[in-house]
């Protein structure tokens, strides 16, 4: 008899993996992006199983927007060709497959041998406050750095995308 938790885990894991595979294997870039959303939603579900509701909401919110933008770009930039064959493999896909498979086998082997020791304690029921305390307390400097990183990234992205105007 499966517990509710275990059932949810297996369902979500299956959805996530299947969606991720579809992202990689789909030949249509827009389909890939749509499956990516499914993978993200599955991941968000896994976060909820791990009592990280806040992170799950962040995941959905940020990635829904991000992926939507990705799709827009995908559509815009592949308008010229056939959308049904817009997401093809490059010449080194065989090598890539071997590398990925090898990495997976290696990690699985290692995982089987690991013996984790739990640190004890239990998770607070309302961990939103704990996250807030952590971000604005212990991790305030990384938080600010991340903010600056975002700002720099936005400015950089705008400059790169628009291009610097030549002197007239």
């Amino acid at each position: 008899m499966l517990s509710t938790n275990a059932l949810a885990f297996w369902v979500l894991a299956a959805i996530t993996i299947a969606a991720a595979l579809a992202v990689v294997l789909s030949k249509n870039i827009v389909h890939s992006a749509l499956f990516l959303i499914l993978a993200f939603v599955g991941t968000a579900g896994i976060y909820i199983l791990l009592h990280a509701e806040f992170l799950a909401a962040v995941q959905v919110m940020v990635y829904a927007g991000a992926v939507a933008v990705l799709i827009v770009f995908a559509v815009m930039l592949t308008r010229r060709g056939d959308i049904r064959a817009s997401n093809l493999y490059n010449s080194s896909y065989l090598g890539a497959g071997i590398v990925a498979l090898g990495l997976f086998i290696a990690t699985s082997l290692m995982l089987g041998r690991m013996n984790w020791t739990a640190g004890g304690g239990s998770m607070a029921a309302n961990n939103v406050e704990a996250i807030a305390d952590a971000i604005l307390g212990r991790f305030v400097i990384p938080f600010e750095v991340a903010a600056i990183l975002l700002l720099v990234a936005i400015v950089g992205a705008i400059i790169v995308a628009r291009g610097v105007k030549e002197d007239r």
Partner: protein
Amino acid sequence: MAIEGIFTAIIEFCQGLLAGTPSWLQTLGLGVLYLVGVLAFVFLNVLYLIYLERKLSAYVQERIGPNRFGPHGLLQSIADAVKILGKEDITPRGADKWVYIIAPIVIFIPATMLYAVIPFGKDLIAADLNIGVFYFLAVASTTTIAILMGGWSSNNKYSLLGAMRAVAQIISYEIPLAFSIVGVVMLAGSLQTSQIVAAQEGTWNIVLQPLAFIIFFIAANAEINRGPFDLVEGEQEIVAGPYVDYTAMRFGMFYLSEYANLLSMSALAVTLFLGGWHGPWLPSWLWFFIKLYIMIYIFMWVRWTFPRIRIDHLMGFNWKVLLPLSLANILVTGVGIKIYQLITIGRW
């Protein structure tokens, strides 16, 4: 009061029926109950929202509005629903078939999930999540994807334009929407909707956060593609935007989801700013409904008064006006809370 607890009694009754069964069955049973309840609520309300919208627009425009089917045309929406079910279901050639078919279903998923965190009355909340408001925003943001799916898969230039607009508009306006809520969250000290409502027992947040309410209202209008911000449909420019090629029930699903979003957004506004279910004399859920419909009325009133905004003004207004204002609001709220604390308890 007996009417007060009518819905909680129903839920308790259903829970009693499920008592003794395995836990997963209880979860599933309650989930199904939630889904049935929400769907019934959404469909009933939406049918009458459509009627209400048509009637209100008619009154504003010195017309009579639907009045043929049923007394005062009260059954008009049902007739329309039957009609739309009987229409030919068209899938355009060249459309991305699966995406095209799934899009109207996908748009309904967030529309129904949103109601989980709305406290409809005292103890009348499906899932009192600790991230309530944030959950609402996160789920609401996925509507973009469904619109984008519909717009792209129809393989129509008008719908593609509409889908692009949807992405630009909804993603941009999410930011001031979220930031306007931050003030409320700071006052309540929690993201939990039930606690936000509890914090408004004395004064409603609209009094404490008038600017946030205005920003919220504008951004919400843009989020649900209504009123002066209905660029996604943009009937005069891009005909019906992403819905151009949809017919029959698929179009009906989009149409319903628009009103479902209006309903949920108004419910959120009531929860956050209008004191939720608080109110004297009447049962709490009735108060919630009264406020909900006042809010919806304002949304409709605005829609039938204003012309559509231009796309570059839309973006400029968001980034240059709403966003700084909402940030300023957060700052003022923070300073205000600290000053209040200084006055009342004598320390920061």
